[in-house]
């Protein structure tokens, strides 16, 4: 495997690079980009670059959201439904005049749903994360279905034009949105709460013993994630320009897979969000590869599911190796 940038000059720095938990993901990403480029004829054109990022951006944002929640030792299965809810709500109520106001309402809705409801239930009320977010997922999806049982609603043309447009000639707007999201994450990663998220995810008892309020940190993680769900929801809205309750569905499990591929342990406390971003890109490129390889659309769904299962299995292995509970073989 040859690194594109040919980093074989400094052996020592290369060695420390391999220890970086996001490193395998980066390698896989580079490999897949090469594969994609070879089977998709116009991969390196501006047009393809732009359209790729239109689909990639929401997934990367959701992966960041899921990554933060998983790092805190939890997991949220309702992220996709929250996006569907945002999507249907805004598309249904939006008109040219009240667009901004509705978007703001949608923002509040998302923060309450993904942030407060899930955060309080799993953090303060200590309900088991998986099944609780599964339940809230049904609730959010249900509301979305009530609002828009069939696809419809209205999204101003300008939104779609903006999302598929570029600035400064070559920078796709969708990519700029992604950069903005990454910037927000980067700022957050320098705060005390961010380190506490790792602490709670790695050793919840120890974090509590160190004076950290674990439920507040869990809530913080969820609220921060909800911000990214909002941005992702906006992207999806602008991308599809319509309200449809099915739009959000694939994001849930894909975000989990992206996080696992990116080297973040599902048990929490370990790994880097950068890995989750790589993981999301990997999934995006994989989708391209599957699409351009010409397999039937039915088989595509199978493959997408299989990838998730594979990612879970591979992700389970390091955890297995790490927990050497030798006294009891269970």
């Amino acid at each position, binding site marked *: 495997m040859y690194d594109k940038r040919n980093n074989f000059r400094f052996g020592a720095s290369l060695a420390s690079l391999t220890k970086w938990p996001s490193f395998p993901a980066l390698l896989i990403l580079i490999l897949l980009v090469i594969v994609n480029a070879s089977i998709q004829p116009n991969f390196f054109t501006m047009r393809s670059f732009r359209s790729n990022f239109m689909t990639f951006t929401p997934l990367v944002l959701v992966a960041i959201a899921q990554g933060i929640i998983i790092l805190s030792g939890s997991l949220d299965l309702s992220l996709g439904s929250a996006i569907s809810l945002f999507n249907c709500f805004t598309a249904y109520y939006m008109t040219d005049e009240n667009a901004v106001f509705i978007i703001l309402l949608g923002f509040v809705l998302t923060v309450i749903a993904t942030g407060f409801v899930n955060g309080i239930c799993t953090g303060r009320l200590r*309900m088991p994360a998986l099944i609780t977010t599964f339940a809230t997922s*049904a609730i959010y999806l*249900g509301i979305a*279905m*009530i609002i828009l049982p069939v696809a419809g609603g209205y999204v101003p043309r300008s939104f779609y034009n903006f999302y598929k447009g570029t600035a400064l000639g070559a920078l796709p707007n969708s990519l700029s949105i992604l950069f903005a999201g990454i910037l927000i994450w980067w700022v957050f990663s320098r705060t005390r709460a961010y380190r506490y998220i790792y602490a709670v995810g790695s050793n919840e008892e120890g974090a509590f013993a160190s004076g950290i309020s674990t439920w507040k940190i869990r809530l913080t993680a969820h609220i921060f994630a909800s911000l990214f769900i909002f941005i992702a929801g906006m992207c999806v809205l602008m991308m599809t320009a319509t309200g449809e309750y099915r739009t959000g569905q694939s994001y849930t499990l894909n975000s989990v897979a992206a996080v696992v591929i990116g080297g973040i342990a599902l048990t929490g406390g370990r790994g880097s969000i950068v890995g989750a971003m790589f993981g999301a890109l990997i999934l995006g490129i994989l989708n391209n590869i599957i699409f351009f390889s010409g397999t039937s659309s039915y088989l595509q769904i199978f493959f997408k599911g299989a990838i998730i299962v594979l990612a879970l299995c591979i992700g389970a292995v390091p955890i297995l190796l790490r927990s050497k509970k030798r006294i009891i073989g*269970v």
Partner: protein
Amino acid sequence: MSTVQNMTRTRMKRFFDNKIIMAFILVAVLFIMGQIIVPGFSKFNHIMSVLQASFFLGLVGLGQTIVVISGKEGLDMSVGANVTLGVVLGAAIINGENARLLPAVLAALGAGFTLGLVNGLGVSLLNIAPLIMTLAWGIVIEGLLLFVIKGHMFGTGCPALELLGHGSIELGSLKIPSVVVIWIVVIVLMWFILNKTKPGHVLYAIGENDKAAHLLGVRVNFVRTIVYGLSGTLSCLSGLLLLGFVGSAHLNLGARYVLPSVVAVIIGGIRFGGGEGNYLGAVAGSIFLTTLQSILVTLELSEGGRQLITGIVLIILLLAYTRRQRR
């Protein structure tokens, strides 16, 4: 307060603490409400038809029950895909001929079991959280089915199957649906197996404390894997019988069983962490949810509304039953 009053209070408290009884009371309440909303709701025939419809959820719920009892926050989210598999497999193999019923049953049992084993392996050997593992694997099964079907359903059920799934038995002047009879047999059988046999005891043990079970000689991973296989079998079988009930089928038939089967189990008081619970509770839960659905449909609530209500019911149950303790 005298001792007699005290005793009655404790007995009353124990009565209401018994989740199964609570579940059946809820069912009764629901039927009363149903009668108010739709006169004739609680007539014998209609009750029978509700029970008939509940059977399929109840069979799926049986698989869910044993998976939850087996511990580690066990759940099987692939039941929907397996139900659909049962429908598709049944239709394809039987294709109208009675003689092909038995091979179809065997195929359904085999396929469901094998697919369920994959879940079991992921959960036992790789330690992947059951909810996620089964959710993901369910998607794979669905995708495979979609591909094989290529969007078109082919084949149909057969008269024998329709008799099983849709027919009834006459008992004097009462018509009792065949599936209700089957269900009663299953309930009795399960009660016996879970409470009075070796496998039943072992199942509860690994759910209650798998470390202790391991040290006492149980091959925990093996047992768990088998349990998930059985859950696959049961939902596949349910799908096959569903084919007889509905007559023809479409592809989304199975998905609507996933969430309700989980809710039914929790309504029934089966402990989410494993090691405790009774199938009878899941039976009550299945009847409750099916009845609720039917009432909501009568009230012309949309599918979204029904999903919303089911989700809210689940959240309330989770709040009541599953909060982790702080020291």
